[in-house]
């Protein structure tokens, strides 16, 4: 019924005895208290708002159980900024108004981190295709795609560790 798990989120270890059916997204929000990771659909894996990095790879955190992440490393949107400095993607989203209601934003950012790690110089088509797992109902994606491209340029110009 329940099982103790140890999940590292943004470098911090969270240990808790959790019901086996608890979804990772609810571990992140309710156990770790990190509410930057959103749920926009009803845990159906459709919207991508709950996207986090699992061992560096973008996954929808409603699509796995917390116990499946036992012993693994998770990065959420709260883990993107370092030393008080926003991630290049966050800066680009802010500068280009790639946000309206903001509900999808954290998931889009996490998918974009994974996309740019694999492909540092994506075309507009590659950016758009890379983000099909993240729904935004406000922006029409134009500013989002532009912001990802701008962040990619900034990251190529000034790589951070």
């Amino acid at each position, binding site marked *: 019924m329940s099982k103790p798990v140890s999940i590292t989120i943004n470098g911090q270890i969270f240990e808790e005895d959790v019901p086996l*059916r608890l979804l990772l997204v609810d571990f992140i929000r309710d156990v770790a208290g990190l509410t930057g990771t959103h749920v926009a659909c009803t845990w159906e894996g459709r919207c991508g708002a709950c996207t986090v990095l699992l061992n560096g790879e*973008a*996954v929808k955190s409603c699509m796995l159980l917390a116990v499946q992440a036992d012993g693994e490393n998770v990065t959420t949107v709260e883990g993107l900024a370092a030393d008080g400095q926003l991630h290049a993607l966050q800066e680009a989203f802010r500068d280009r108004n790639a946000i309206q209601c903001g509900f999808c934003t954290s998931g889009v950012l996490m998918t974009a981190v994974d996309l740019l790690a694999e492909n540092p110089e994506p075309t507009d088509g590659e950016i758009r295709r890379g983000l099909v797992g993240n729904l935004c109902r406000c922006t029409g994606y134009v500013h989002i795609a532009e912001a990802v491209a701008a962040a990619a340029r900034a990251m190529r110009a000034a790589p951070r560790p």
Partner: protein
Amino acid sequence: MYPAVIQEYLTPTTVDEALDALRRRPRETRVIAGGMSLMQLMKARQAEPACLVDLRKVASLREIRIDGAGVRIGAMVRYKELAADARLHGAYGGLGDAARTIGDRQVRNRGTIGGNLCFNDSAADLPPVMLALDAQLEIARTGGPHRTMPAAQFLRNPREVDLGEDEILTAVLLPPAAPRSGSAYLKYGFTVDGPPVLGVAAAVRLGADGRCAAAALAVGGVLPRCRRAPQAERALVGHSARDQAALAAALETAAQEVDTHTDPWADGAYRKVLLRQLGGQAVAQAFGRAAGGA
């Protein structure tokens, strides 16, 4: 929706341990791989397993091995890894095509070839590729030797596979790549990289003269199940990539021999249009890859 209560969650580290785990609660246990299908069923309460056997720690299921005997793809190999493996070109090109266009980035980071085949949805990309590439599936069971069977036998009607409650799909086996062979997969879905309304996998082997010596054409997204188009395959033999009229005629044969159903996504006649169009492109791409192109 949310999964029902789960009583037990096990993470075996070997196939034997996994088989033992399966025997603890027969009929109440489900094997979970990437979970891209099973988690959806569980959240919709279409599956309420008391026990989950997670294969994520079984390292032997994660390997892609390519040698003179062909290709052995562990059941836990993810779409991401299939898509990125530069060795899966030419004769195996169709597999990469499918893996690169399944779902979305997040799905490809989690979903596995074994999970896809065991779920066997009617709108899935890998089943037709398996048929066109003459894949064999390797299955482990308690107390007995592994058995292998053709994908065509394993993949029964949608969401049905020839797999016992005490068995685990361990690997996909592809025959060695013959010289001058190529394959390709193309699909049409209503969203980018979405589930196929129709998908076509083509595989050809060319003779030294560049003419088709053997062909396979498989169609997914059709009911009752994905299938080969043997008459069309025979019609492709003897032709080169330049014989446009003959290739088009072969695809017309395919459109006639494959029943296409009507559902809210597309009517049967439209699926035949897709079959001709996508099939023609897939065949052309397979010819190109067989001739050494990308």
